[in-house]
């Protein structure tokens, strides 16, 4: 059991390790922890000529706009809903494709497809939204042009909020699965060949090997991706939603998330206090969630927990 001077002892014993960790710790201290004083902006009335800690303390007044419109529940619900779908489908898709790609025998095929699958990551949402508008635009869109040519009635996609749940999810997956696929591919590469050899000798076929060896070995990676997405579950993907939906209020009931709401609300007000307040709400939510989930994971398997 550690004694009172445990830290000092550890410091001396593992001084090289501490030294190796030091730059990173210093970086986060300066780059992330020091600016956290700004969280205090959420509780004061902003003023140009007063230092932060001398501004008027106004309690939770800056948080008020979040529930003023009566939308906070809906926004929270939408935000979490989308993120859960993103996490679930996103990981399922990228794991599947990563396994498939890694099992493909032909080398050149593998190389080309890997690169191609990673391409959407480079397309910015601004440009994507223009392409999407070109496809679904009621009057001249590709979709309706085809429908009309087939003699069917044109559809107005931009006035159907429900459809956008599907579209948003599809575009998210399309753009982002390449990134996590690469992570999984790298993890698969790290699995020792000897496991597979042993399984082959035991008579396991490709499906069985994927199911019994590859998948379990990816658990660790999955947990990391999961915990990082859960921590920011109230944020994220602003560009996707903002660019796709923009000013179209018809679609807000299903596509408005906290970030887009805050952005629109504060664009007219320029208020630092309120912007910070929204961030604090998101952070507290993520923080609580992550403490719970990490705690559960720790209980199940200490190795997989993040901290």
């Amino acid at each position, binding site marked *: 059991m*550690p004694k*009172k001077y*445990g*830290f000092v002892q550890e410091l001396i014993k593992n001084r090289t390790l501490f030294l190796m960790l030091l730059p990173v710790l210093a970086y986060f*201290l300066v780059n992330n*922890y*020091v600016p*956290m*004083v700004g969280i205090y902006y959420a509780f004061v*009335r*902003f*003023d*140009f*000529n007063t*230092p*932060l*800690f*001398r501004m008027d303390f106004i309690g939770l*007044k*800056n948080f*008020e*706009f979040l529930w*003023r*419109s*009566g*939308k906070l529940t809906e926004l929270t619900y939408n935000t979490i809903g989308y993120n859960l779908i993103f996490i679930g489908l996103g990981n399922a898709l990228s794991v599947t494709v990563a396994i498939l790609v890694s099992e493909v025998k032909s080398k050149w095929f593998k190389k080309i497809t890997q690169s191609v699958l990673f391409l959407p990551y480079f397309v910015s949402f601004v440009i994507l*939204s*223009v392409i999407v*508008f070109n496809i*679904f*635009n*009621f*009057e001249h869109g590709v979709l309706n042009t085809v429908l009309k040519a087939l003699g069917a009635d044109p559809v*107005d996609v*931009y*006035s159907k909020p429900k459809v956008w749940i599907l579209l948003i999810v599809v575009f998210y997956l399309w753009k982002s699965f390449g990134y996590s696929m690469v992570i999984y591919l790298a993890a698969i590469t790290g699995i020792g060949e000897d496991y597979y050899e042993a399984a082959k000798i035991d008579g396991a076929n490709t499906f069985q090997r994927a199911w019994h060896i590859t998948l379990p070995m990816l658990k660790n990676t999955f947990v990391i991706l999961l915990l990082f997405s859960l921590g920011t579950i109230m944020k994220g993907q602003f560009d996707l939603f903002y660019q796709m*939906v*923009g*000013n*179209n*209020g*018809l679609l*807000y*009931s299903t596509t*408005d998330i906290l970030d887009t*709401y805050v952005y*629109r*609300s*504060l*664009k*007219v*007000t*320029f*208020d*630092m206090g*309120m912007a910070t307040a929204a961030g604090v709400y998101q952070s507290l939510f993520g923080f609580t969630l992550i403490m719970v989930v990490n705690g559960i994971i720790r209980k199940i398997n200490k190795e997989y927990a993040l901290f």
Partner: protein
Amino acid sequence: MLKNVNKSAGVALSMALMASVFAGCSGSNNGEAGASSEPAKASPSASQSSSAAASSSAAASAVPAGIDTSKKVHLQFYMLGNAPKDLPKVEAEINKMAQEDLNATVTFNFTTWTDWDQKYKLLLSTGQDVDLIFTADWTQYQQYAKKGAFQPLDDLLPTAAPALNDFVPKDMWNAVKINGKIYTVPATYQEYVTNGFVWREDLRKKYNLPTPVDIPTFEAYMDGIKKNEPTLQPLAIGSDVRGSLNDTYLDVFRKKVGALPYGMFASYDKPAEMTSYWGSPEQLEDLKRFKSWADKGYFSKNELNEKATNQEKLVNGTAAAMLGDNPTRFNQTNGNMKSLHPDWELGYTPFAVATGYATPVHPIHNGFAIPASSKNAERALAFYEKMVLDKRYNLLTQYGFEGTNYTVDGGYYKMVGDANTNGFPREGMQGWAWRNPEFMLFEPSYDGVKAIFDQLDKVQKPDIYTGFAEDYTEYQAERSALEQVEKQYLFPLLAGQVKDVEGGVKTFMDKAKKAGLDKIQESYKKQWLAYLSESGIQ
């Protein structure tokens, strides 16, 4: 247990660090008397040139008597938009002159249009070295001034920039006052950015349609286009349905006094009679008209998601008209169109024809202010005086180098090369604010705009809206919530995409009231009336 101790030790350490950092911050923010910290704060370029300039610092004879220029300063000048390519050359030349005249040098900084509003806010709120910054109604000059982001100039002007003080007419100085103080130096060039109908004139002639001069004739024009050119969209609005449809419509059809927010309405003739347009029979009538336009296919069902600009759509022949653009931009659009399609042409009728009046830009519209954090207010003002009144400074910063960037041909400005190859196009530094009518050079194509301006001059009346500085601290939360409600429930109505207009308005009003509309409107009206009586407007 032990772990906790260590953890809190770590937290305490980081807290201590933060505290020390912040102590430093408030110190430098307070530093009005911060002459001692100045050397440390000066940017590297400033210290470099200061040593080079030490010898010539005696040559400060051309300086206004009121200010002390014995100490060399470096000014940070901030403008919106993108920097022209030849900026370094212009800056070097300006610095040569400013060094001699004012013992000062300057860096011209540009925010670009990427997140400019964010950057503007950051520059003003984090105590950066900014000595001069652009202001306008659309950069929220009134709000920033009210909140103390700029230095009052009343006492500085007579000593630091006496000539500029005399050059700008007294009523313009009065017009930019916020809470009785001057916070910005207004531009004196009088132009109009009022709206007018824009349409394809060649098609109008071809199908013998009426010339749009008011809403009924405009409707008839759109109707004619729809019938004769079914694939052409008669009206381009774009995703900003509030600005490019509702506001312009109210402007011409109901003579709204200005872009009053929160659904407030007052006409130009009776500004004190302020009512709520939202929820009124008039609004219902207008919304039904917009809906009928949408139903007839005058504009796209997906206008709210449109990505191309209205001007682009006109130029490239996918739309036939716009409900409102200013004369200068109309002229530019027309020029662009003619270069692509020589046989097409655009027509323009100012809204003044229908309303009977036009308001020239308010002095707040273009100006330069000195941020509260500036330590060189006097020199900055003296320098700005040079920019406006000294022809060498002015021409150089508006048009670049004569010969390399432009030539003067028969009194007209002529660009060398084209906008892609020329490193400093006309007004390449977005120098709207320091335009000096006496030195201004125009392209021949601008004559069309001048003709419109002359026409508007005959019916000009003052802008009584822009001088009003709203104070929304009291209802800030409600205001943000309302913005959301407006986008979600009103925009689809404006775009004619709600089948049941009455029901839609009802939902919108319910939501708006819940967000606090009544409180906002009441407070806004009170402030507006106070403003009117203060400035003697009936």
